[in-house]
């Protein structure tokens, strides 16, 4: 979305608004139909513009003249748009929530099946998600459509290539006071802890609203709620923390819907102590432990929380500094490990 040149139709939409765009479409339809089709197929076109012209394109039977990606995008827009509450199951009747059944009727199964077997559908959805989020577009059904396309890509498809664009969108919408809960949820549903760097970048933003949101989303990093630090210092501290802890953090499942200050990730101190990467989803070790690791881990689990944290931090620090020294240290009995760790930090265990 950022950096790409705008197509002529996008420029007209931005300059003259939706009505101006439709007038231009109507005029060109009569004077230069071929030129109009070329403009509609511009590779830099944004989905938001195509969406605004959807009914005009259909009424003039131009959809078959669109590229397959754009044509599919319009089909997806129809399938995934559904205004108003559903009345299907007993729960949804009572609540007004949509049920799975409704989406099956409205093509959800088709979309998911298509995503699995058809690269065009994924490509169209990616194009929608990357170019369709626009703060000037009307809310309501369009916003819902955008949320659904983004969620399908991130939660079903784990399409990580769109994460930078979605991070931009989250912060832009937040600056404009728009709803971001479901977008943030979808962002984390990509199950990609490295994408946290995309959020950390905003800690150094000149716009305080970005900094506030970044602090909130990275609330699991110690010190993010300390207002005394900001700018590059805050950013670099978060960056260092993420670099050190990245292999050991896992998702908690918390969300903005759930509580006021969700902690989206947590450090697995067991993994950090063992210096073994942990599964982002389960928080478990992906490979079995050897005998020494299993033995040390059992002792580790019997310690209280401050001592577990002390050992985990010391272990990780030693591992990063000198692998051989870490191997010698790790083979020591846990009391000796604690004594050494305590010396490292200048305190007592």
């Amino acid at each position, binding site marked *: 979305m950022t950096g790409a040149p705008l197509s002529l139709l996008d420029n007209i939409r931005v300059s003259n608004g939706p009505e101006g765009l439709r007038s231009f479409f109507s005029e060109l339809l009569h004077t230069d139909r071929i030129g109009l089709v070329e403009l509609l197929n511009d590779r830099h076109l944004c989905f938001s513009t195509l969406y605004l012209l959807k009914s005009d394109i259909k009424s003039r039977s131009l959809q078959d003249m669109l590229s397959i990606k754009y044509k599919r995008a319009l089909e997806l827009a129809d399938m995934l748009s559904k205004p108003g509450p559903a009345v299907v199951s007993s729960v949804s009747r009572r609540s007004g929530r949509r*049920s799975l059944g409704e989406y099956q009727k409205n093509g959800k199964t088709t979309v998911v099946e298509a995503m699995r077997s058809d690269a065009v559908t994924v490509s169209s959805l990616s194009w929608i998600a990357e170019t369709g989020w626009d703060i000037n577009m009307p809310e309501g059904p369009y916003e819902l459509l955008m949320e659904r396309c983004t969620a399908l890509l991130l939660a079903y498809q784990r399409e990580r290539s769109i994460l930078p664009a979605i991070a931009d969108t989250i912060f832009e919408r937040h600056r404009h*006071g728009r709803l971001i809960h479901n977008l943030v949820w979808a962002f984390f549903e990509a199950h990609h802890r490295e994408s946290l760097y995309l959020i950390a970048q905003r800690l150094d933003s000149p716009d305080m609203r970005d900094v506030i949101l970044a602090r909130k989303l990275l609330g699991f990093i110690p010190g993010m709620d300390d207002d005394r630090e900001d700018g590059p210092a805050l950013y670099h501290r978060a960056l260092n923390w993420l670099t050190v802890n990245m292999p050991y953090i896992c998702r908690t499942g*918390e969300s*903005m819907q759930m*509580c006021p200050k969700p902690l989206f990730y947590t450090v697995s101190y067991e993994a950090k102590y063992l210096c073994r990467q942990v599964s982002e989803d389960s928080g478990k070790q992906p490979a079995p432990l050897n005998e020494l690791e299993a033995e040390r881990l059992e002792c580790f689990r019997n310690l209280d929380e401050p001592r577990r944290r002390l050992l985990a931090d010391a272990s990780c620090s030693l591992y990063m500094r000198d692998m051989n020294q870490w191997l010698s240290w790790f083979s020591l009995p846990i009391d000796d490990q604690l004594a050494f760790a305590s010396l490292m930090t200048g305190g007592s265990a």
Partner: protein
Amino acid sequence: MIRFEDGFSDLESIFAQYRRGSPEYEALSKLSESSRSYVYLSREELEFELSLRKGIIDASLALYRRRLPFRIFQESFCNEAYWDRRQDGGFVLKSGARPSRAVEDIFISTRMYGTECATAIVIIYYKAVLDVYMPELFDRAFPRIVLMNWRDMDQLIDPATYRGLADYLPGDCRYVRNPDVDPLTPEWQGENVIDLGNGRYYGHGIGLGSIDYFIDALNRNRREGSQASAYLMDTATRPDFRSLYLYRKNAS
């Protein structure tokens, strides 16, 4: 166990105020029998917390009985005599509207409102505080109200989330998470539920029942082929009982 900073120790006299089986009695029992130590400034503070917990439960039951409609934020609606609907789906107290009257209206003209489960919890908290504070104090304490989600809640209520607690009490807000929710229906990604005591919970949009009832409802809205069940998270969100207590104490 319960400890009072002012030296009070006659816990039996507090138990005597509540009916066995009531939410207050259940909360009191859990606090007093816990291996953890709960410290209160005074008997009055503990009684205030129990009243507010009961208020949270009563407000939940009232919303359930009056069938507050569920709507996602994009489709939320409110009685515009008291509230302005914000662009993001939240409701802002209308200029000139009396806060207590506006909150009360949600429980009177309930069908004129529709919103998500997080907003329902916010409404429940305000109503519970209103019932404990009474209108005059409530209006003074909350001249500006935004009903949306946790973020916009008044600093005085300042809810906090506690993780891995030793004890969960009636009036707590718990969360049932649906890890494999269908991405097209993110409103089913989880449910904020109020612990009503006796193993029953209220969740806006799903209803009233045991935790299994909520888990079943969420499981019916998972993506195809999912094997991961919804589950109750090991967390509880609570308003700042002490701040609310001290505000009332200092106001009287």
